[in-house]
């Protein structure tokens, strides 16, 4: 972080712990993350690094701050204190364009949150088309400015234009193609033109996952993806998440499915009281837990 006056980061709250240098090996780095709702401390000074390719499962009792932690990772909740770095960008800095960063972070919710006013295909293509159009407009604006400034530049100093190889139709076609490819993959290609309200929970959740995938994210955040599903639909959703994990997607999963966490995760966080009480490979967490709270928790859920 440059500390010069011109580029000094701007934050929501002024009293903060100082920024530590970002570890370039980590994909997501969390520094001294705290979150308060009024006087209720939900997250208590968490520092953690998540490397590319890791599959993190977060387990813990209700109210332990699991979901809040996950939502802080893409700043859906503003942290009260501390920083979240994603690929070296401080997401808590108000000068960082959060929308650009979120394109690379997919998120899947417990309640699916498919857009009810759009059919499945539109649900999936909305964000990619917007992203494409936004980039296209940006390039065009930049070119217009360059062209104008070139009028005043001497022949050898003229700057080159940004090449634009795409147009609106192409962006839409590409997004649609990609969406259909993803839908075919999960076996729901025939549902492309129906509205979410006609689908089952399992189908909706798989489409929600695919919608996040359509943005080619670097990391996927799952917020209890199977908690709102009928027991018989849990399998199909977990299967899809497992496939993604096998493909090498970095993911952070808040879950109550211990068997799944054990199978898929490379690292398990046990959270309680707003802190990560214990962490380690699943064999260690489930096999030989050290923390008394974790022992107690596991004896209840396993």
């Amino acid at each position: 972080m440059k500390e010069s006056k011109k580029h000094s980061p701007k934050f929501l709250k002024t009293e903060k712990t100082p920024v530590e240098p970002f570890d370039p090996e980590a994909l997501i780095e969390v520094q001294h993350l705290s979150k308060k709702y009024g006087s209720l401390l939900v997250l208590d000074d968490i520092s953690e690094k998540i490397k590319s390719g890791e599959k993190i499962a977060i387990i813990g009792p209700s109210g332990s701050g699991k979901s809040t932690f996950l939502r802080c990772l893409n700043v859906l909740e503003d942290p009260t204190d501390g920083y979240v770095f994603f690929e070296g960008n401080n997401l808590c800095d108000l000068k960082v364009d959060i929308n650009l960063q979120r394109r690379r972070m997919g998120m899947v919710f417990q309640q699916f949150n498919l857009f009810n006013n759009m059919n499945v295909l539109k649900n999936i293509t909305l964000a990619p088309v917007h992203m494409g159009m936004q980039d296209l407009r940006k390039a065009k604006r930049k070119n217009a400015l360059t062209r104008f400034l070139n009028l005043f530049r001497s022949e050898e100093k003229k700057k080159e234009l940004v090449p634009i190889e795409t147009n609106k139709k192409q962006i839409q076609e590409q997004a649609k193609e990609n969406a259909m490819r993803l839908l075919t993959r999960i076996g729901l290609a025939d549902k492309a033109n129906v509205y979410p309200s006609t689908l089952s929970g399992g189908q909706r959740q798989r489409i929600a996952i695919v919608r996040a995938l359509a943005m080619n994210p670097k990391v996927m955040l799952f917020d209890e993806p199977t908690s709102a599903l009928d027991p018989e639909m849990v399998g199909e959703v977990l299967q899809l998440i497992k496939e993604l994990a096998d493909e090498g997607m970095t993911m952070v999963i808040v879950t109550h499915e211990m068997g799944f966490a054990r199978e898929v995760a490379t690292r398990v966080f046990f959270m309680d009281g707003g802190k990560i009480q214990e962490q380690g490979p699943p064999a260690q967490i489930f096999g030989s837990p050290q923390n008394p709270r974790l022992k107690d928790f596991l004896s209840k859920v396993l």
Partner: protein
Amino acid sequence: MKAKLDTFFKYLFDYGNYETVLIGLRNTLVIAVCGLLIGIVIGSFVAALKVAGTRNRVVKVISYIGDAYTGLFRGTPIIVQLIIFHFIIFRGSGINTLLEAVIVFGLNSGAYVSEIMRGGILSVDIGQTEAGRTLGLSFTVTMLFVVIPQAIKNVIPTLGNELIALTKDTSVAGYVATMDLNAAFTAIAGATYDYLVPYLFLALVYLVLVVLITVLIRVVERRMRKSERK
């Protein structure tokens, strides 16, 4: 009574005054419908600002202006607003009085619709906004393509109410020389020296209009609900 009816119809048809009434009807509908459309645009904008997070200071200031606007236009009678616009703001601009009425009614209904829309936006699950934002869509895009279309669906019955109220409120547009339904019938009443029959007819016309609007809104509402269950 028979004589009065005869005079009324004679004046209306034999002397060709039904044209004035038709113009009045058209103007009334134009003011009400265009007013509501302007109101929905302004109202959605102001409502979106009101529910926006307060991260950005500029947005915050604009949302205060939105609050002031709502308070001002809801807090004063529409006649007063019409007269202020006619005699102070548009004074000497030579603007068409119909356009003037549309603007004033649009601004007035915008204030009401902003609160209606705010309720509608709040009734849409917050998860929809969150889903949009996590996909990297900006607040504006999420509002425009995801939340507001759903909010409008939720507020259609209330918007129908607003359209009905607006239709009847247009009866004061005559104050600034706009030929609306009320002004047309008042002219007839003045010319025939009879107030009973024209005003009874006026009431009948408004009643029929309102019934038609009610039916129309039912149809629109049913259509919109159906599209979700395809």
